[in-house]
């Protein structure tokens, strides 16, 4: 018995990098897979409250009603058992591939988010960013750039007028707002001087204005924050930017020929992308997993007397993860709230907002901040 434990410990010790990588990826995947069902439930309940209805409250778990939290599970089972057919006019290979592309990109993109600072296990320091490239920004940009193809492929392969137009509109909208998104985050790179999200978060644990405010990106570059939040809605095709599936004109846009599990894979990908972008906003503008006025390092120092040195980092990381999820939840709630309160844009208005207002605003923001930072730092 002792020998087995010894072998396992030795294996863990020598392969700590591999094991840690798998653990982090599994954690991020679990989060990504849980976001969709929970958000569907939140969305339906929230819609019901706004529209003075009750919403799903029947399906419970193990005999308890739990405000209908069992609903997503029931929905998943229902979707799994629905008929799964390929329309005869569709391009079969790409019709099947499109939802998989969307879901995989959503699940891979979320790996670029730093979930917590670092934990120490058996003397090994493990960084809690699943894909730790030191250039987290570029990784997330690359993934969101690839996100266009799931939508475009779905629209094209369905071989349906509504789907084609919906897919084209959705992809044109996504690329239009991607530029403003990139330019909105640009000032944060030169303000913090890094492309690494964790270094950026560490810089945000300082305080600003003699300790009154935390050193968060939102206070350093508020215009960037506003632009980024707007583009985030457009990138994920959510209201008020959900022209792609404007049911009044396009039935359901690129989703019109999809049903059963394929349809839900699109939503899995979309919710994972929503979570990833919300978490990115949190990391860049709201201090990520850091608690305001109490950095992770201080937290570990505070916790060390209570627990011993290594478990202290675990507890601190757990608190950090909770803080990150709580901050991200604010944005997820904002998505839902906007969906049921705001009217939809017209397509020409949408393109106008993206190209004629947001892009020049983002450029001016970059120039002004470059001059301010230049004057403050270089003279």
């Amino acid at each position, binding site marked *: 018995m002792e020998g087995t434990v010894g072998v396992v410990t030795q294996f863990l010790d020598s392969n700590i990098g591999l094991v840690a990588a798998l653990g982090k990826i599994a954690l991020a995947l679990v989060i990504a897979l849980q976001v969709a069902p929970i958000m569907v439930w939140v969305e339906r309940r929230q819609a019901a409250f706004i529209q003075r209805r009750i919403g799903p409250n029947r399906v419970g778990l193990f005999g308890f009603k739990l405000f209908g939290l069992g609903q997503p599970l029931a929905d998943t089972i229902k979707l799994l058992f629905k008929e799964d057919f390929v329309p005869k006019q569709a*391009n079969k*290979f*790409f019709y099947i591939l499109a939802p998989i592309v969307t879901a995989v990109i959503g699940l891979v993109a979320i790996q670029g988010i730093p979930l917590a600072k670092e934990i120490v296990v058996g003397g090994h320091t493990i960084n809690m960013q699943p894909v730790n*490239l*030191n*250039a987290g920004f*570029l*990784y997330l*940009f*690359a993934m969101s*750039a*690839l996100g*266009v*193809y799931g939508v*475009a*492929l779905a*629209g*094209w392969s369905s071989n349906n007028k509504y789907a*084609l137009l919906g*897919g*084209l509109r959705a*992809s*044109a909208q996504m*690329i239009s707002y991607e530029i403003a998104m990139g330019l909105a985050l640009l000032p944060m790179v030169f303000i913090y001087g*890094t*492309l*690494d999200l964790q270094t950026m978060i560490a810089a945000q644990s300082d305080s600003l204005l003699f300790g009154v405010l935390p050193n968060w990106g939102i206070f350093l570059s508020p215009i960037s924050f506003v632009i980024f939040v707007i583009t985030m809605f457009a990138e994920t095709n959510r209201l008020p930017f959900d022209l792609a599936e404007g049911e009044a004109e396009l039935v359901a846009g690129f989703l019109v020929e999809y049903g059963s599990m394929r349809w839900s894979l699109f939503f899995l990908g979309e919710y994972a992308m929503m979570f990833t972008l919300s978490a990115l906003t949190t990391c860049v503008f709201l201090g990520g997993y850091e608690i305001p006025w109490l950095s992770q390092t201080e937290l570990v120092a505070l916790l060390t007397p209570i627990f011993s040195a290594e478990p202290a980092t675990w507890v601190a990381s757990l608190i950090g993860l909770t803080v990150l999820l709580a901050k991200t939840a604010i944005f997820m709630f904002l998505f839902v709230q906007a969906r049921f309160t705001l009217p939809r844009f017209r397509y020409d208005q949408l393109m106008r907002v993206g190209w004629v207002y947001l892009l020049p605003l983002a450029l001016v923001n970059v120039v002004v901040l470059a001059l301010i930072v230049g004057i403050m730092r270089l003279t």
Partner: protein
Amino acid sequence: MDLNFIAFVVMGLAATILSGVMITRRWPVSAAMVLIAVMTLLAGMFGLLEAHFAAAAQIIVYAGAIMVVFVFVMMLLNLPPEELRYGGVTWGEMVLISLGVLVAIVLGTQVGQGLLTQGLESMGYAPGQTPAHAKSLYFAADENVKNVAATMFVDYLWAFELVSFLILAAVIGSIVIAKKRSAENANAA
């Protein structure tokens, strides 16, 4: 035989085979999709060569922007595959082409190796050591980006500024060519 080596060779082979698949597609959109896969694989190869920023830019610019334009044009024109006169390559031609490729590979690997070694020696490079004039390379991702930036903004300053004029010319040119005259606007879809 380490993991990086295997991954690199597998990705390279996959990229080569997929690009072969690409040039024989009948639907333009499927060709574009296969090409996107090829570019993503190349990005992975750049990553293994420790050119981190190049890998990111390969996906952001090539797979994420240039190919979007191709896909858009293919979706806009909506060419059915029957309209393509499939470049009829007969079996005889196929054999000739494969023979030619084989000869080219042999020549390329034999002569190319000599030329490569010669060229590298003239640059002061010997296997396993960095030439004296080479700038120091940092291979952490963050440092790689800084390195590329430093070289571009100092050594390639003029090229960088000229790129902006190239882009300007391309914008104006493509809009002049593609935009319909106002008289034709009536039949816009």
